[in-house]
């Protein structure tokens, strides 16, 4: 898949699909934080990388000099007319002010703490069902047999799609988020195949014919300024919920289990003290935040002494911000009861992850149920663990032995 030569100098030629970054990006960011806190690479047509917490915050808050028009760095650079303005491909994540606030407002009530609490029982049943299916096995893949299914099936449930379509969803996600190092021709072919749009259009047609009590019908019924949403807005938002809501949380659950598989003291502590779980979940989210966002520079300007040019990409690594020792003492250690933890795993500013309450609930329930059933487990072979490439980082294979 990757056509890129290996990275030699991370300060001048970084690549987030490089095997070393995919395997373990933390030493790379730690070094850059001291040597070159705003790195540049000519790859992808020119990309910036701030790694200090303060600089990540500054970019996240600056919607004047940065646009969210495209938030996935790839070889395909959107041109001025490529995306339907002002909506963007997947509103509101790809929208800028002032349209952003309108598009976001529509979705917020569906993701409030109260609304999400309504999905906890289904999530817990699903986790128990997945664990029951592993009964009698001594070796399980915590990603393939467990983590990946949980957010996938919850989102399918929220959107009111057929559960049998889970595999179609997994393929979409892989194409959009992981194949970013594909050539422009390969990536364009995927986009132009129209498979995702066609799938969504079919679901929209079904829901228009037979409205139901789900998020799809909610979006189709929603109004902006007295008008129903444009079809491309509904479709884009559904694609966003699917892509942003699934492999992100799957990565967080997987990374937490990967950590626990290697830290018996942390396993014992969580098994003995279930009330510690919400605090521990925040620490897993800080230490293994899955999502690096991206921006494009909206206008030429100078940032921390570097000349940013309109149209440059910028990776916005919230996971690197979370490892900044100046904000998080002992940042590279996982401290399950870390009491002061203002981590940025869900982003900062107006684009704060709209599904953060959902993700937190899913991670907590998934870990509670796993620890309840399998309090003791270890990696069968650490070299078999694989991590996803691209801007959503999580373990895709976690073979564990039940002890």
């Amino acid at each position: 898949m990757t056509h890129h030569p290996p990275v030699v100098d991370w300060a001048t030629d970084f690549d987030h699909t490089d095997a070393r970054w995919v395997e373990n990006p933390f030493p790379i960011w730690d070094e850059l934080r001291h040597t070159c806190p705003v790195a540049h690479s000519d790859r992808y047509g020119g990309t910036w990388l701030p790694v200090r917490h303060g600089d990540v915050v500054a970019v996240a808050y600056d919607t004047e000099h940065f646009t969210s028009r495209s938030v996935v760095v790839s070889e395909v650079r959107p041109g001025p007319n490529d995306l339907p303005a002002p909506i963007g491909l997947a509103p509101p994540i790809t929208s800028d002010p002032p349209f952003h606030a309108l598009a976001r407002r529509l979705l917020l009530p569906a993701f409030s703490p109260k609304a999400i609490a309504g999905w906890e029982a289904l999530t817990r049943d699903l986790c128990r069902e997945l664990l029951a299916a592993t009964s009698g096995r001594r070796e399980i893949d915590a990603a393939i047999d467990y983590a990946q299914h949980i957010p996938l099936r919850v989102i399918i449930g929220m959107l009111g799609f057929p559960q049998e379509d889970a595999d179609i969803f997994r393929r979409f996600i892989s194409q959009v988020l992981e194949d970013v190092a594909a050539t422009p021709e390969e990536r364009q072919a995927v986009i132009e195949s129209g498979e995702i749009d066609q799938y969504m259009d079919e679901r929209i047609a079904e829901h228009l014919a037979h409205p139901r009590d789900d998020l799809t019908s909610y979006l189709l019924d929603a109004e902006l300024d007295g008008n129903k949403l444009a079809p491309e807005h509904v479709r884009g938002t559904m694609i966003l919920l699917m892509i942003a809501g699934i492999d992100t949380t799957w990565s967080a659950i997987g990374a937490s289990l990967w950590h626990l598989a290697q830290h018996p003291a942390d396993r014992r502590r969580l098994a003995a003290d279930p009330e510690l779980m919400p605090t521990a979940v925040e620490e897993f989210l800080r230490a293994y935040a899955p999502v690096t966002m991206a921006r494009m520079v909206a206008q030429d300007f100078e940032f921390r002494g570097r000349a940013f040019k309109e149209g440059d990409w910028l990776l916005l690594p919230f996971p690197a911000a979370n490892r900044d020792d100046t904000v998080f003492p002992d940042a590279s250690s996982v401290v399950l009861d870390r009491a002061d933890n203002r981590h940025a795993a869900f982003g900062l500013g107006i684009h704060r992850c709209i599904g953060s309450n959902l993700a937190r609930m899913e991670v907590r329930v998934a870990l509670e149920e796993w620890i309840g059933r399998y309090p003791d487990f270890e990696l069968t072979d650490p070299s078999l663990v694989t991590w996803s490439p691209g801007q959503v980082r999580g373990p895709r294979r976690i073979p564990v032995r039940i002890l």
Partner: protein
Amino acid sequence: MRVHVDPDRCQGHNRCYALAPSLFAIDELGYASELNGGLVPPEQEEAARRAAANCPEYAVSIVDSDAGASP
């Protein structure tokens, strides 16, 4: 002790509400505000401190009766 949520900074992370549900309310869009004029009962002071220390946007501040505001 009093707590205050800066509505211009709050982005609806809901951390304060999760850590100190008796001190904060969340509106239907997920944005937080302090309850009871921000007054913190003595037994909730640690919860208030944690709510402030866990806000990713530095939106929650604490005002001690005999000291100035701190983030």
